[in-house]
């Protein structure tokens, strides 16, 4: 693409909005995923008895719902990003496309 076109897009307010929104959203979610995963790993490393403690009267331990929870969290957080990107971000992209390429 010509530098000229790139500059025109870059100065478009919607492009600025898209870039800022996507970048902060992406990094926040990345941070959230890292906190959850490394939190889980550190819990395993430093407090094994907590994860092995029973909940309820049977053999079920706290670790089981937490472990399963990390899997579900991973899928849900991906879904949250994809949903917003496929609607809001792509709409902004389309708007920019229309504005500069007409």
């Amino acid at each position, binding site marked *: 693409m010509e530098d000229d076109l790139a500059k025109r897009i870059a100065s478009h307010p919607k492009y600025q909005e898209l*870039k800022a929104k996507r970048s902060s959203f992406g990094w926040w979610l990345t941070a959230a995923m890292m906190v959850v*995963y490394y939190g889980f790993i550190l819990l*395993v490393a430093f407090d094994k008895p907590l994860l*092995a403690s029973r909940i309820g009267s049977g053999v079920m331990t706290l670790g089981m719902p937490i472990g399963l929870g990390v899997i579900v969290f991973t899928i849900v957080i991906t879904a949250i990003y994809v949903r917003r990107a496929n609607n809001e971000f792509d709409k902004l*992209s389309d708007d920019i496309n229309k504005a500069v390429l007409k």
Partner: protein
Amino acid sequence: MKSTTKYALPIAALIGAGAAIAAGADLGQAEKQATNWTAISMFAIFVVFTLFITKWAAAKTKSAADFYTAGGGITGFQNGLAIAGDYMSAASFLGISAAVMASGFDGLIYSIGFLVGWPVVTFLLAERLRNLGKFTFADVAAFRFAQTPVRVFAASGTLVVVAFYLIAQMVGAGQLIKLLFGLEYMYAVVIVGVLMMVYVLFGGMTATTWVQIIKAIMLLGGATFMAFMVMAQFGFSPEAMFAKAVEIKTGIAAKAGKPEAEAAAIGFSIMGPGGFVKDPISAISFGMALMFGTAGLPHILMRFFTVPNAKEARKSVLWATTWIGYFYILTFIIGFGAITFVLTNPQFLDAKGVLLGGSNMAAIHLANAVGGNVFLGFISAVAFATILAVVAGLTLSGASAVSHDLYATVLKGGKADSKAELKVSRITTVCLGFVAVILGIAFEKQNIAFMVSLAFAIAASANFPVLLMSVLWKGCTTRGAVIGGFLGLISSVVLTVVSPAVWEATLGNPKGSAWFPYTSPALFSMTIGFVGIWLFSVLDGSKRAAQDKAGFLAQQVRSETGIGAAGASGH
């Protein structure tokens, strides 16, 4: 043979060698079983079916774009299944379920590590890759840089990762076929080599994708059936299943002569973390290799170029994450099912109470227990088909690195015509096929437990930092990317060689002599890679550096908006 089988207990490998059962093929040494004709016929049906698909795909594979990316015409849903297929290997199916059977919760910790890289791929890379790239991840990494050095680096990163991954898969295939089909190791390696060549040579990415999709559906379907049958036995109550498993584990420990209280503690230990995480540094380092390695695996990254646009690229990672997460939940249930159905049934045990064929047979015996001989054959065939599909994907990405990055861009300066490029990729495919077979045979008796974790560590320390920095950091220059990338590559390989898994377990040096005490190098080698890129970029005052930085704006605009991205058809 007996002693080697025991050595191959997955959990021993998990704890001792830092292991890489999940994505790779740490199946260890296996005993040859009686020839299983049901399994062989099921596998033959799969092969015939996929060869028809290859024939259909071959008719559609005319240009380089068809070969590398199936013409960019795969939907997000299809690509998601294919990515999941690339990621769910035979060893993750057999190895994780066996690890769960042996130690319960620890198996879950392990599989979670393989899942958490996907959101990171989604948030930081997927759509940018799609917007900037055409055929290989080097297209993205070299977008605004001097082509030759960055392409040479990216091709090296690709080929090294592919080589280690391939060895693991080939050796796994040989061991698996001894276990499942009762055939010779050699046959397996040659069959995998030849079929993989046929898929890739004639059908390119289209055939590879569809083989991947079919295998993913078969694997998910089979595993779902097994998990369903297990849960049905317990009235769909996890509590009932866990309680029974704890009771059985306690009984086994008591039988082995443990006092009552200790036996109860051993039985209950499957419900919480055990010896998997030894020291926090190893745990974090290994976690980083898995999390960021996923974002640097060339055969996975390549899949993002098979979809028409960023929207489909995002959808494909969401589908992939969903299927892979679901699959790990299934393997967890299957592992507990194996405790309750397999460990209690003398039909599956030898005189000493050890699983026939080694502990990796947990899921296979469970298939027999819940679905009889035909289902056993089906699951065995699926396990072998799985290796075949993964190997085809790896070969394709290796071939693209040679033909697209080295031949077309470096040698021909980007002026190679599509026909010549296609020819080079086909020649490379044949070469890789031979290399894979030879390596598979050469490594038959080696302990290959470290190979997949090494592949992940290299991908995390070399490919991922270069990709991320080139896309997101304006100040990154050609020199920084190449030097930093190679530093990450070299340091991850060297640190792996001097870690206990290779230095002691594989090279046979005395215990405690390894220079690098941790399981995985990623924490250190990734840091070296990132710092290297940063330092050599900042110090770079060359003319080229100014050009690299000037190119950032255009690259960023395209990566964010997709304007100017290679179109759906790729022509």
